């Protein structure tokens, strides 16, 4: 099978195992996927804390626009003169908050962490297809993070034109302070980020296609792998488009081109010479990534949830095939719906119609996924580990946030909802909260796998309930503000008489946000304390079926000391009536050819003609591609 080459590759690799790599090779420039996943996770957590802190700062401004906060001046200096946030800096905070959360936490922090950790372990491979590329992927991400954050230390401040960075606002350094050097740094950071995400994505795809262990056919893969697989495909196909868009923007800013600029007169400067460009072009390019991006964020979370829910409900995930097909449908459709962000840009209304049709179709596979999650709980035997709680929380957010998508995907309704707090509520629930919960679920679930220690359950319960309730109290009321026409990205509402009625709601939201933020201290404490002082984890603490739990708790470069386990069945054989135990790990030999029907009866095996994986066209393509980058380790 396809793994033959890799296995021989590792025969000599095993011989090196006894010699410990140097500190730098082990902890910093590591090529081991488990270490890289930890690097992604820790960086993601740090970025997440920063993003959350920013949201608290600007929420304070929204709740008490006339109040002066001494501590702000202390930490922000001139950006909060007399303890009051500067309007430009408010925009900068919102922009960087959005950028950090979307790209740095929920793309790199989530997908980077778990794709890295789980793909090799769950497919049964000793490492990624190209460990070196994998290392580069992390370090590009790191450089990108540093570049982005460095914009807080320049005179004109970070990019401030929203996380979408629409030109002309972002293209004209004179249009607002943040559009100067800050935006240059933002664009640079994004370019690094795209490189990182491409290096990662290509690796994930080739590993999944090429390096599955014996018996691990695609239809036996855990749903996590399917989710990471589609996520990586989305990333590889859509990030380059953003790269193009960003490069054009860089050209417009620095080299006098007019891709996005036309007919502009700037106060204090006069008529610009640019003609013929279109700012709408940027929006097309941006959202061609931007929409798939929200699924790049969400799909890994959904994959993690599938795994966690099945494991903890002790039931097979309901409708495995339907789950895979709906993932595939969502991934495909996400490429042709970007226009729903542009209904009111003045583009041809006919296009609006088309984008409305395809957008609302996405609701169908999404609904199927929700029903399947719920059906998996039905008649289960549910263990509420913190991971399970967060997974259930995700489903709840996915429902609440997904349903408001039906309003926003409707071009007619979007007229009055676009860019209001209704949108803020929608995407924070369906993409923000849901994906963060997926990430949390993953952290609690695979913490033993990552660190060989257990996290404290009770702290986890507190963490979950506080965060869950706080998140709903933050984002649910925002729907109503949006319905009343309250625009987003407003520094304060006190200058608009009719929005006065929302003052106390704004206070409620901010207080809830602060409580939610404080609850994260429980998590941070639990996380870091358990790394060092946590209870030792047993081999398979959740009695799970997947392969990652067969590798020894102590980390080895190469994952398994001996041969890689062979897979005999799918990942979701929980509570099979013909078994004493309520789980049936994939690697345990048994009646592996059997086929069990819904009620547990054993059926004759359907004869399936296997095409050797190595001969499938996609495999050939990705193999040759990844070989380009796989360097022999000394």
């Amino acid at each position, binding site marked *: 099978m396809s793994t033959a080459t890799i296995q021989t590759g590792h025969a000599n690799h095993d011989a090196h195992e006894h010699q410990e790599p140097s500190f730098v090779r082990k902890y910093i420039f590591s090529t081991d996927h488990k270490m890289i996943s930890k690097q992604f996770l820790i960086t993601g957590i740090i970025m997440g804390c920063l993003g959350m802190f920013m949201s608290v700062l600007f929420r304070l401004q929204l709740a008490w626009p006339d*109040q002066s906060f001494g501590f702000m001046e202390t930490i922000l200096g001139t950006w909060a003169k007399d303890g009051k946030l500067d309007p430009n800096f408010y925009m900068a905070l919102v922009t960087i908050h959005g950028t950090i959360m979307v790209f740095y936490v929920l793309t790199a922090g989530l997908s980077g962490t778990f794709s890295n950790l789980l793909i090799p372990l769950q497919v049964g491979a000793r490492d990624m297809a190209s460990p070196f590329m994998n290392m580069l992927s992390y370090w590009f991400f790191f450089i990108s993070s540093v570049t982005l954050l460095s914009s807080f230390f320049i005179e004109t401040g970070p990019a401030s*034109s*929203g996380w979408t960075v629409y030109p002309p*606002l972002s293209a004209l350094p004179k*249009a*607002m*302070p943040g559009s100067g050097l800050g935006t240059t740094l933002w664009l640079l950071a994004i370019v690094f980020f795209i490189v990182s995400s491409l290096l990662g994505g290509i690796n994930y795809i080739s590993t999944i296609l090429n390096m599955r262990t014996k018996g691990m056919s695609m239809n036996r893969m855990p749903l996590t792998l399917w989710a990471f697989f589609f996520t990586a495909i989305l990333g590889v196909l859509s990030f380059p488009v953003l790269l193009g868009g960003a490069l054009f923007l860089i050209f417009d800013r620095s080299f006098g081109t007019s891709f996005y600029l036309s007919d502009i*007169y700037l106060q204090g400067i006069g008529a*610009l*010479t640019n*003609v013929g460009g*279109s*700012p709408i072009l940027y929006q097309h390019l941006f959202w061609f990534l931007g929409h798939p991006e929200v699924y790049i964020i969400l799909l890994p979370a959904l994959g993690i949830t599938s795994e966690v829910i099945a494991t903890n409900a002790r*039931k*097979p*995930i309901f409708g495995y095939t339907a789950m895979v097909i709906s993932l595939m449908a969502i991934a495909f459709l996400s490429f042709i719906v970007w226009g729903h962000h542009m209904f009111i840009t*003045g583009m041809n*209304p006919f296009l*609006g119609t088309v984008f*409305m*049709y395809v957008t*609302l*179709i996405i*609701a169908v596979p999404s*609904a199927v996924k929700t029903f399947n999650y719920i*059906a998996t*709980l*039905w*008649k289960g*035997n549910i263990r*509420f580990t913190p991971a399970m709680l967060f997974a259930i929380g995700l489903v*709840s957010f996915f*429902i*609440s946030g997904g*349903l408001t998508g*039906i*309003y926003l995907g*409707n071009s*007619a309704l979007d*007229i*009055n909802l*676009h*860019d209001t707090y209704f949108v803020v509520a929608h995407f924070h629930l369906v993409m923000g909260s849901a994906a963060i919960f997926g990430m949390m679920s993953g952290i609690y679930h695979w913490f033993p796998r990552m660190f060989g220690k257990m996290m404290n359950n009770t702290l986890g*319960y*507190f963490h979950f309930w506080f965060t869950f*309730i706080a998140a709903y*109290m933050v984002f649910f009321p925002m729907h*109503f503000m949006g319905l009343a*026409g309250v625009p987003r990205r*407003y*520094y304060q509402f006190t*200058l*608009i008489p*009719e929005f*006065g009625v929302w003052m106390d709601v704004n*206070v409620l939201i901010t207080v809830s946000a602060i*409580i939610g933020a404080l*609850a994260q201290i*429980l998590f941070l404490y639990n996380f870091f304390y358990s790394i060092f002082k946590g209870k030792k984890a047993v081999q398979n603490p959740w009695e799970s079926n997947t392969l990652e739990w067969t590798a020894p708790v102590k980390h080895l470069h190469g994952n398994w000391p001996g041969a890689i386990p062979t897979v005999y069945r799918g990942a979701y054989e929980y509570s099979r009536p013909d078994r004493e135990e309520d789980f049936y790990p994939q690697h345990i030999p048994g009646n592996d050819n059997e086929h069990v029907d819904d009620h*547990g009866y054993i059926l004759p095996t359907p004869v399936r003609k296997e095409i050797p994986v190595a001969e499938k066209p996609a495999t050939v393509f990705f193999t040759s591609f990844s070989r380009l980058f796989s360097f022999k380790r000394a």
Partner: protein
Amino acid sequence: MLAVGAFMLFAAFIAFNKVYDIASPSTVVQSAAWFGVGDDKFEPVKVQTTEQTLSSNINWSIAIFVLLVVLVIANVFDISGLAARLSGKENLSGNNVNKYIMIIFLILGFIGVYWEFSHHGKYTLLRNSSSEHGVEYDSMFNVTLILTMIVFVITQALLFWFSFKYAKSPNRKAVYHAHNNKLEVFWTLIPAIVLTFLVLKGHQTWRAITYNADKSKSQNIEIFAYQFGWKARYAGADKILGAADYKYISGANPLGIAVKSEVEKLKLELDTAIMNDRKALKDLNSSLSQLRIQLELYKGLADRTNVVITDKEIARIVSGEVKDELEESIRRKSKQLERMKAIEDNKTVFATMFNNAADDDVISTEIHLIENRPVTFIFRSRDIIHSAFLPYFRVQMNVVPGMMTQFTFTPTKSTTKIRSEKNDNTFDYYLYCNKICGTSHYNMKIKVIIESESAYNTWMQSQKTAFGKEAAPMAVPVSLPSDTTQMRLDSLPVNKLQRLTSR
């Protein structure tokens, strides 16, 4: 564990106390008090009222209540966990506690949703559309609301109910049930059918709004956006909105409309500016050893142009930044002049643009519309993307530089009517900017007044043309000419002309 509980409680109380401190003594903005203020300046009036603090406190008490429930239940962990440990059984106490919180959360959550709808639902625009298409919009909205709420209630209830019902019990094994094709087909088809219905209704609503049949008999008003404000341009006596071009924008002609005398003035201005720039550049270009003198020279120029020379400015001069800027400015202005001349040289283009139609246009800082008369807003941006948002009318359209956009609608509720409906004598409609556009984005708005025909005419009578020959313009006639096509600004090939002439 109790320590954790105490910590969270403590944190929550600190937060609440802070709120309480801030909310009571100083600056709670009381909504009703806002409206007593004059037209243009909306200085918020800060009033301290007990009602306000009270209503905030209701929120707090609910928040505290929810948190307390969680805390109390969670504290049960220790006790029952201990009991389980003593009796040597598998410890399911955590599981059981969570199972009960699940069901409590479900119930409190639904109560919270209901509370939200009853308390904040009334501020939303659901029942208040002030335009003709708004009625259709609202019915689309309500249908979506009802359907999604049904799904919301059912799925959330099942999710938490199952979590409660099927929580782990030691003497039960989960049912091995991997799929059920009939069920899955069923719950794929149901959403598909519902969504087909929503899509078709949405399509119909969208078409009705965007391919508005009233377009041909509507009054055209240009809405002009700039950092950070709005202007409205009315066609004046000739019923034609004159052509305009961003190249003609000047201090005196903020919309850049094609008025010959203004354009001549601008050309002179530009010439002078270029001359000044050149002079400054020449001064700057002298040798570096004469820096002091240069600074003096530059300062002289600066005095004329009201630029303050600071240390920072000096640094910019020394670094050559100012020189670059001057060169760039000269290049830009020369290009502008060149393009203006190109338009003049092209006789047909010139004749179409400068047909005196703009001479009597009225530029206003308020938007006045006639009740029940269709109107088409034609949007133009001076600098960056803005978005014109009129929530009460269910109207929003981006305002994009280099591309005109438009929106046709019919306001049906006059300002007077909505005031009495809202029981608020000071209420006014506004058009807000709803696309991030810079520092003062949050304060970029223009008042919209819907009034009767006669009130509109009176108002129009009091307006002055931008640079008109007549002192007082005539009202835009209310009866529209039969040939309405010539009124349409978008029928003028202005944009095309620009393209032709700008290279």
